[in-house]
């Protein structure tokens, strides 16, 4: 064997390394056949494997030692004509060198893999907040619990499975009958400034608990002169119109239905302002917007597209 020193004799110009050979594969196949033969039929298949192994071992050895047995192939060192520097002609290189191809393939495949991982993860991070938003109907109890003209502070869970975190409050007043249909004013207690819970400005009375399909509902009698927010002092009248402070619109309201003589809350909607009172009120209704967001006037154009809610 030739010593593989680091000296100048070990240059590639002197002789070529043996070209790649398939004989080791044949050798490996032979070994595999021997092993299979040892399990199935050592005499026949094992012998065949041994023959294959020996033949390819011989060929492999002969091939590997060829350069040491034969005369060295003299190879002329490659020479190219030097291009004179500064002759003004730009030298055009190979247009698509292999290294550049491999580089772009590595970066490209990396980008594809990164995308395949990122897209579902980013979707999982973002989409559940916007898709499949639903709101449960809330049963507040039989109509007999809501005497005409009496304000009640109703506290209930919008999703009993989620527990206390879904507790919400609404101010409910039975306005009597309008066109043979019951009329209710149901105002959300979420302040239209930044979402704090507004309180009734006035004395409160008897508390009762009403067991319903949506869990226990608490009803407190109240005689409010209006509603006020403890956080930043927003004030509203009994129709939810802003009378003072920072809120940008009237209080939100609940839509409702009467189902088998029971009052059922549906979704909420936003209100810019209300003219009149009670059953005769004219409500300027808008799609639900977040607190602090204008629904009318010039500022409404700051919030052109609302995210999907219920």
């Amino acid at each position, binding site marked *: 064997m030739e010593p593989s020193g680091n000296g100048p004799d070990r240059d590639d110009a002197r002789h070529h390394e043996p070209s790649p050979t398939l004989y080791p594969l044949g050798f490996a196949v032979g070994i595999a056949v021997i092993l299979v033969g040892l399990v199935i039929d050592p005499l026949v298949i094992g012998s065949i494997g041994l023959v294959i192994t020996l033949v390819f071992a011989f060929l492999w050895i002969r091939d590997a030692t060829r350069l040491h047995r034969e005369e060295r192939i003299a190879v002329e060192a490659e020479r190219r004509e030097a291009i004179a520097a500064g002759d003004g002609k730009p030298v055009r290189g190979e247009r698509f060198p292999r290294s550049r191809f491999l580089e772009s393939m590595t970066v490209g495949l990396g980008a594809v893999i990164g995308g395949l991982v990122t897209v579902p993860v980013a979707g999982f991070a973002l989409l*559940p*907040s916007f898709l499949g938003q639903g709101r449960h109907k809330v049963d507040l109890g039989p109509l007999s619990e809501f005497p005409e003209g009496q304000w009640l502070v109703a506290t209930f869970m919008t999703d009993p499975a989620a527990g206390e*975190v*879904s507790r919400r409050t609404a101010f409910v007043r039975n306005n009597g009958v309008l066109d043979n249909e019951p009329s209710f004013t149901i105002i959300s207690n979420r302040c239209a400034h930044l979402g704090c819970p507004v309180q009734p400005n006035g004395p409160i009375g008897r508390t009762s608990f009403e067991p319903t399909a949506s869990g226990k509902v608490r009803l407190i009698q109240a005689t409010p002169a209006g509603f006020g927010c403890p956080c930043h002092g927003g004030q509203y009248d009994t129709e939810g119109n802003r009378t003072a402070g920072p809120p940008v619109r009237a209080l939100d309201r609940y839509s409702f239905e009467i189902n088998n003589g029971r009052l059922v809350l549906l979704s909420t909607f936003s209100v810019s302002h209300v003219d009149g009172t009670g059953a005769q009120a004219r409500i300027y209704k808008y799609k639900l917007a977040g607190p602090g967001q204008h629904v009318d006037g010039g500022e409404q154009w*700051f919030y052109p597209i609302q995210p999907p809610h219920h």
Partner: protein
Amino acid sequence: MPGARKQPTKAQIRRRNLEVALEYPLDWLEERSGLVGGIKYFLFRKVPADTNWMQTLGSATLTAFIVQAVTGVILAMYYRPTPQSAYPSIVNITDHLTMGWLVRGMHKWGASVFIILMFLHMGRVFLFGAYKYPRELNWIVGVLLLLTGMMEGFTGYLLPWDQTAYWASVVGINLNGTAPFLGPWLAQFLRSGQEISGDTLTRFYSLHMLLLPGAIAALIGLHLYLVIRLGVTSPPWSPEAAGRDRPEEPSDLRQGLTRPAAHGSGGQS
């Protein structure tokens, strides 16, 4: 010549052997990683002779962040981010677990210390003019650190899950919601839906615990890299401060780099 030297005493040999034995692990590490040299490069830098106590505010902020990280990791061992058990687990940490009140107190008050120190550090950098060329990028990284630090404060405030935490987060999220155009979308993302729910709590917990601290750690790494690369600024009253004439330099060398007026002669002896 070795022969000319006096033979070392036994005590000297022992001492020499001890030194070799002590240095061996460091040499082993240095040879394989270069870490010892790296740490020396990081810690034993040349700084201006007249650096000021005010220039320790950045290190103080880093220390405050490390305190927050360590106490936060330990609090996470006892805290449970669900609507039913978040507040009871906070009560347990504060009232029942040994020294829980101390670690929670360190995290709670340390949060304010961290934010205050960031502002003081920013004020120092501003008043020293240390944000000027070539350190503008480090100012920008610092602003990003301030923002992520404030986000840490916002997301951490919800976690005790008491009335203050809940309503402060309601107001904070709705404040984000009033931003034009994308505000409502941002609010709904933060809320993890149209209403505050248990998902809001776990979302804030994840942001507070994983995403934001990771971002802050990475930004601190970039911040320190730029500090080391660019060096520490001299105080503005220093004779070495940028823009002053230096006696040992021929003045024509600096022409075009400074204003021609001899404005920098003060402070030289």
